[in-house]
């Protein structure tokens, strides 16, 4: 899925002063590219990701996912887009503690209307992909950080999305787990031609992406071979 941002502005007005996090961002991510977005804390990296993930609306500008400007869509439609076209990986994993590993992965599929058998079959394939078949019946709360993040990645891939958004996916992991997770993301990106946008403050992690963009004071700056603005 190609991702295109044109003149995107976002200002948060929750504090004493308005906080301009995105100031006219333009960006084109071709379908299947693995992009890392870096920048200091508060630069607007996560805000950019939430806008791309249809979790928030821009104040101005266009956000095209494929050929659709999702900034203009209503919430009901954006719910469907999130369910069927976007996968989300969070820094703190955000697994549902009341569910097992397998159930966490089947959850988005069942929300999308897949049968129990079909969703379990696909979940088992994803568990094989991340090397966690044995843990499928464990409650998600008992897993290690690295394992949780792998399950979160499997959940994000459950509905075969065209866009994977990862918000500091290695932020809570040790070095070994970080490497493992980044390799998984890289492998998935290559094998599935899945457009992947990963926010990270870790330059080492960014090296796993084929393109790196720096976000600073609401503006994008190309760090790799391609200019964003």
């Amino acid at each position: 899925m190609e991702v295109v941002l044109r003149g995107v502005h976002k200002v948060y007005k929750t504090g004493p002063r308005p906080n301009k996090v995105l100031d006219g961002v333009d960006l084109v991510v071709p379908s299947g590219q693995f992009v890392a977005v870096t920048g200091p804390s508060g630069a607007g990296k996560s805000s950019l990701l939430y806008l791309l993930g249809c979790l928030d609306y821009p104040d101005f500008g266009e956000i095209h996912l494929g050929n659709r400007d999702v900034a203009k869509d209503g919430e009901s439609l954006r719910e469907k887009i999130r369910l069927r076209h976007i996968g989300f990986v969070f820094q703190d994993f955000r697994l549902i503690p009341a569910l097992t590993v397998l159930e966490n992965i089947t959850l988005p599929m069942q929300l999308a209307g897949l049968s129990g058998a079909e969703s379990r079959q696909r979940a088992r394939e994803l568990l094989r992909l991340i090397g966690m078949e044995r843990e499928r019946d464990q409650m998600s709360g008992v897993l290690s950080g690295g394992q949780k993040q792998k399950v979160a990645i499997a959940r994000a891939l459950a509905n075969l999305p065209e866009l994977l958004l990862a918000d500091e996916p290695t932020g809570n992991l040790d070095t070994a787990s970080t490497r493992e997770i980044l390799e998984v993301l890289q492998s998935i990106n290559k094998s599935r031609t899945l457009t992947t946008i990963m926010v990270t403050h870790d330059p080492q992690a960014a090296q796993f992406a084929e393109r790196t963009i720096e976000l600073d004071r609401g503006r994008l700056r190309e760090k790799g071979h391609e200019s964003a603005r």
Partner: protein
Amino acid sequence: MIASLAFRNVLRNKERSLLTLVGVVLAIGSFVALVSVAAGFTVRVEREMGSREVHIYVTGSRASNLPVSPLAGAGSGGVSLPRDMISILESQELRNKGVSMVTPVIRSHLDGPRSVIPVIALPLDHAQNVFKGGRFSPEPRDLKAETVVRSGPLPAATPEPELSPTPEISSSPGPTPSPTDSPAPPSLSQEPDKTGPAGARKRSDEYTVYPAITGQGLERDIQELLGVTDGVLVIEELPFVPQAKMGSLGFLDYSVILPIEAFFEQRPDRGVHEYWITVENEAVVNDIQALLKVRIEEYVAKKEQSKDYAGARSIEVLTRRQYLKSAREYLGYGWLLQVAVSMVGVLIAITASMNTMLMSTYERLGEYATLRAVGASRRVISLTIIFEAIFLNVTGGVLGLLFGFLATGVLDKAVALLLEIPYPMAEVTPALLLQALILSGCVGVAGALIPCFIVSRIDLVAQLRKGL
């Protein structure tokens, strides 16, 4: 998946769920216990009406159409119908249509030594026919030979306690009946003979009284009222009500059938409260009802023209179904009252449920934001919350039914003791159980409404930034 998640959410905070459960159990239990009293009345009325061989009721339109026992005295509200109307009802025309019996009925009461005794006065030879199989009570108890109505005058020498019968029955001395072989009504107003010791009373075959059904102390009441020492069979004793507690409010679970002639003897000009009409073939009930209406209207118009009419201005001719409907309407007020009282408990349960669901929801806002992020719609999340609340409350509802069932027994006895109504009134019907179960589900839904509203307005970005 939604149901599974909702169920597991209930178990995530067991202590809180348990406390909410207790609240729901108490609310549903008290609903069952309270409403079962009204349900019990309705069931008894339906059984009694069903056991009567009466197909059409002619009554004053302002009469409260309640059946005979145990509310006999409350029945007709003083609305009377002329006695000579019977000639219309028993006319050859109506007999040809299928009317087989017309029974004039007076509802009244006797002031007994410990209680007010409901009285039904009707022609005694009709009693066995009107009350199917000789069963006056709706319960399957046969009246045995010795309880079958017999009549006869009181012997002049027999001491008789002073009676205070109904307002319609004069307490002034009436004519002393003379002994006769043929059944005749006892005098209800005979002056007691102070010279004879009470213990000297003896049963005479020439007079016997007409007790009908059940009730602790009935035998003694009848003996003291009418001066007989035997011939009264108490079919059912109600063990949990002490005799001394019986009946200061009046309505007991038995009635006394008296010959209507006794009432007419006292007040030759008095009317009756109802006419009960039995037909040969139930298929023609509606035709007969229609004809009766016409003939009664003509009768009243004619009487009014000659200024010779003092009965009810408006007369109703009701089929058994219509009469029952009317009775249900009266009993419906009682039901409403019981429901209103029990709703206080239900409102408390809703508040408790809402509080629990609110706490759970606030604790899980981050989780709900995650669900939204992975594609769950607001509707799905609201459903999860509603399912969770329903699980919790219907579980409480089922336990509440059991609790209510037990509480009903206790309440029954408490009502009997406190209100001195000496028979089990409450009845837990399948309909009541279903209502209680549905109510518990509604408590759940009501408790989930505000949490659903909160979740639907959740700030996704703020929640996702917070972390879990």
